[in-house]
C-alpha cells in the first residue's frame, strides 16, 4: 500500500472527539458527531461523502471558519481550535476559488505573504515560483475575471500554496470544472502534492476522484466517519453497507456464518454456494450476515460449475470497455457481473439463458451491519 501503509509518520492534524452543532433548540443540527481522525504528515487525505455528511464542516473547523462545539483539533500536537483562521498555518482552496476580483493573478498569489509581512523581494520571487509551479507564468498581470475556470483553479492553488502552509485544505476544488479539465487537474494536484510535500486534505463527493487521488480516504455519513482506509481497503473491503453502496457498484448477498478463522469467515449463502469472506477489523460476525461482492470480482459462466450461484441472465449492458451482465439468481436477488470486453468474448451469452455466477477468491467481504 506504499506510503499510506506506513503508520510511523507524524500526525499533522488530529481531530479528537469533535462535534459541531449549528443552531439551537429545535432547529439544532448536529453536523459532526464525536469525530476522531488522525491525518498524517505529507498525506493526501480525502473526506468523502454525500452532501450534508459533515465533510465540509470538518474542513471549516480545521481552517478556523467555524469553531467546534466539543472536542479538540490539533495541528502537530498543538490545540488550534480556539485560534482564528489568520493565525493558523493552514490554507484553503475554496470550491468557487474565491479569488479577489479586484486584484491581478500575481496580487492574489502574493496576498497571504503580504499579510504575513514578508519583504517585497521575497514575495515577488515566491509569486514567480508559484506561477511556474502551476504553469501560469504568462498570466501574471491578468485580472482574475479575464482567465478561464481551469486557470482560476490554478491561481487558487498557487495562492493557497504560496505561504507554505503546513496543511492545505481543498473544498471540492474540481467540482466546477468540466470532465476533461477535471481529469487533468486530478493529475496536477497529485503532482503538486508530491512536489511540495504538503499535507493535503481534500473534500469531495466524487468517489472516483477520491479513489484515484488519495493515500487514505475517510468515508463520512450523517456527521460520522464510517471507515478510514486506503482506496483499496475502502473499495475491496467496505465495512458497512453505506460505504459499499456509496463507492462503486455492489452486490449484496445474505448468508449464514459457518465458521470464523482469523480474519476470514466461511459463509453459507442463501443462494446456495459457500464462500470465504473477509472480516473487518474488530467485527465478530455471527448468524445471519450480509456480504458484498464487487461486480468485477465475479465471473459469469455459460455452463455453471458446482460452486456457482445459479440464475437467469436478464440483461446485457454493453459499455465499450466492459459489459454488465444482470443476473436474477434462483434464490431471488439480482446480481451484476462486470466483465472486461476481449475481442470475441461474451458473444455466447443471450438474455433469458440460464447462467452461473462464480465469486472469486478473496472477493467477498462481510459487512458489520
Amino acid at each position, binding site marked *: 500500500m506504499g506510503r499510506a501503509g506506513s503508520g510511523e509518520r507524524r500526525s499533522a492534524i488530529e481531530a479528537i472527539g469533535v462535534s459541531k452543532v449549528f443552531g439551537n433548540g429545535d432547529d439544532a443540527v448536529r453536523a459532526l458527531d464525536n469525530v476522531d481522525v488522525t491525518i498524517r504528515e505529507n498525506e493526501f487525505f480525502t473526506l468523502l461523502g454525500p452532501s450534508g455528511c459533515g465533510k465540509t464542516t470538518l474542513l471549516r473547523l480545521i481552517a478556523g471558519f467555524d469553531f467546534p462545539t466539543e472536542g479538540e483539533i490539533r495541528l502537530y500536537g498543538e490545540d488550534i481550535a480556539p485560534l*482564528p*483562521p*489568520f*493565525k493558523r498555518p*493552514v490554507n484553503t482552496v475554496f470550491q468557487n476559488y*474565491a479569488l479577489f476580483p*479586484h*486584484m491581478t493573478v500575481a*496580487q492574489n498569489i502574493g496576498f497571504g505573504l503580504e*499579510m504575513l509581512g514578508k519583504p517585497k523581494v521575497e514575495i515577488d520571487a515566491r509569486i514567480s515560483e508559484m506561477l511556474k509551479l502551476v504553469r501560469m507564468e504568462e498570466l501574471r498581470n491578468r485580472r482574475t475575471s479575464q482567465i478561464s475556470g481551469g486557470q482560476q483553479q490554478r491561481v487558487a492553488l498557487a495562492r493557497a500554496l504560496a505561504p507554505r502552509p503546513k496543511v492545505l485544505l481543498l473544498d471540492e476544488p474540481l467540482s466546477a470544472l468540466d470532465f476533461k479539465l477535471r481529469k487533468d487537474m486530478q493529475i496536477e494536484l497529485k503532482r503538486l502534492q508530491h512536489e511540495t510535500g504538503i499535507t493535503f486534505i481534500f473534500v469531495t463527493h466524487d468517489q472516483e476522484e477520491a479513489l484515484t487521488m488519495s493515500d487514505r480516504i475517510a468515508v463520512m455519513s450523517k456527521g460520522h466517519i464510517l471507515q478510514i482506509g486506503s482506496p483499496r481497503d475502502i473499495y475491496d473491503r467496505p465495512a458497512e453497507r453505506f460505504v459499499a453502496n456509496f463507492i462503486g457498484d455492489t452486490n449484496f448477498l445474505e448468508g449464514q456464518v459457518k465458521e470464523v478463522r482469523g480474519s476470514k469467515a466461511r459463509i453459507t449463502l442463501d443462494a446456495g454456494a459457500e464462500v470465504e469472506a473477509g472480516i473487518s477489523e474488530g467485527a465478530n460476525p455471527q448468524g445471519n450476515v450480509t456480504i458484498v461482492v464487487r461486480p468485477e470480482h465475479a465471473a459469469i459462466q455459460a455452463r455453471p460449475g458446482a460452486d456457482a450461484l445459479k440464475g437467469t441472465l436478464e440483461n446485457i449492458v454493453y459499455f465499450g470497455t466492459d459489459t454488465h451482465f444482470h443476473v436474477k439468481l434462483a434464490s431471488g436477488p439480482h446480481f451484476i457481473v462486470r466483465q472486461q470486453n476481449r475481442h470475441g468474448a461474451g458473444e455466447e451469452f443471450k438474455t433469458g439463458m440460464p447462467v452461473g455466477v462464480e465469486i472469486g477468491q478473496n472477493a467477498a467481504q462481510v459487512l458489520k451491519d
Partner: protein
Amino acid sequence: MHQDNPPLTRAAQVAAAADRQEIRNRWFLASPALFIIFFAAIGPLFIVLVFSFLTPADYGGVVWKPSGQAWFQVLFEKDIFDDTTTFADAHLSILWRSVKLSFFTTLIALAFGFPTAYFISTRPEKSRDIWLFLITIPFWTNLLIRTFAVQEVIRNEGIFNTVLMKLGIISSPIQIMFTDVAIMLGMLYVYLPLMVLPLYASMEKLDFRLVEAGYDLYANRFQVLRRVIIPLVKPGIIAGSILVFIPSLGAYVTPRVLGGGKNMMLGNLIELQFGQGRNWPLGAALSITLMAIVMIALMIYVRSAGRSEVRHG
C-alpha cells in the same frame, strides 16, 4: 415587378421595416421620460441660466436688459459710498461653510452608515427587510417635522441638555442650536439613509467567501476590511457619498431651522435673493454656481475613485 425582387432582398426589406417600427416603438415608450427631462429639468435650468444674465426688477422678477452684474456680485461687491470693489465676504463664507459642512456630513454619514450597512447585510435574509424598513422610516415623515424633532433634542431646554443637567454632568446648557454642529447633526440625521441604502446594496452582493479567503490568508479583521471589503463595496461608498453630499450642499430647511439666520448655507442664500433680496439674477447665478460646484466635486470624486480602481487591479 415582384419577379425583380430576389427573396433575400425582400426578407431584408421586411427586417429593415421591422427595425424602423422597433425604433419608433422605443421612442414612443421613452417619451414620458423625455418629456419630463426636457420640460421639468432642462427647460427651467435654461431659464435660470438666462435670468442670471438679466437685470433685477425693483419688486422681484427681471427686466429684459442683458447684464453681467449678477455674476459680478457672486464674488465681488462695490462699496456704496466710495465705489471700491472688494470680495463679497458674506458669499464666500457661506460658500465655504456649505462645502465644509457637506463634506463632514458625508464623512460622518459614511462612518456611521458603513457599519450599519455591514450589520444589516450580515443578518439572516428574513430579518434584513425589517432592518431596512427601520432605516427608511424617517423618510415617511415630513422633512420639516423631522428637523423640528432634532431641534427638540438639542435646544437649550431640550432633552439632551435637560438630561445632562439633571445628571449633574453640566451646570449650564451646551449651546448647540444655531451652530454649524446643529446643522451637521440635522443633515446627518436626514441623509443617513441615503448613505446606508446604496452601501447595503453593494454589501449585499459581496461574496462573503472572499472575506473568509482573506482571513484564511492571514489578514486580520482590519486588513480584511481595508484590502477586501472596502475595495469591493467601493461603488456603494461612491454612490452613498454622492447622494449625501449633493443634497447637503443645497440644503435649505435644515440650516434654516437649526442654523438660524446667521449660519446660512447656499440654499438659504439663494432663497434670500429670490425673496427679500429681490435680486433674481443673483439668485440664478448662485444656483448655477452651486450646480457647478456639485459637478466639479463629482468629477474629482469619480476620477479619483477610478484611478484607485486601476491601482488595485
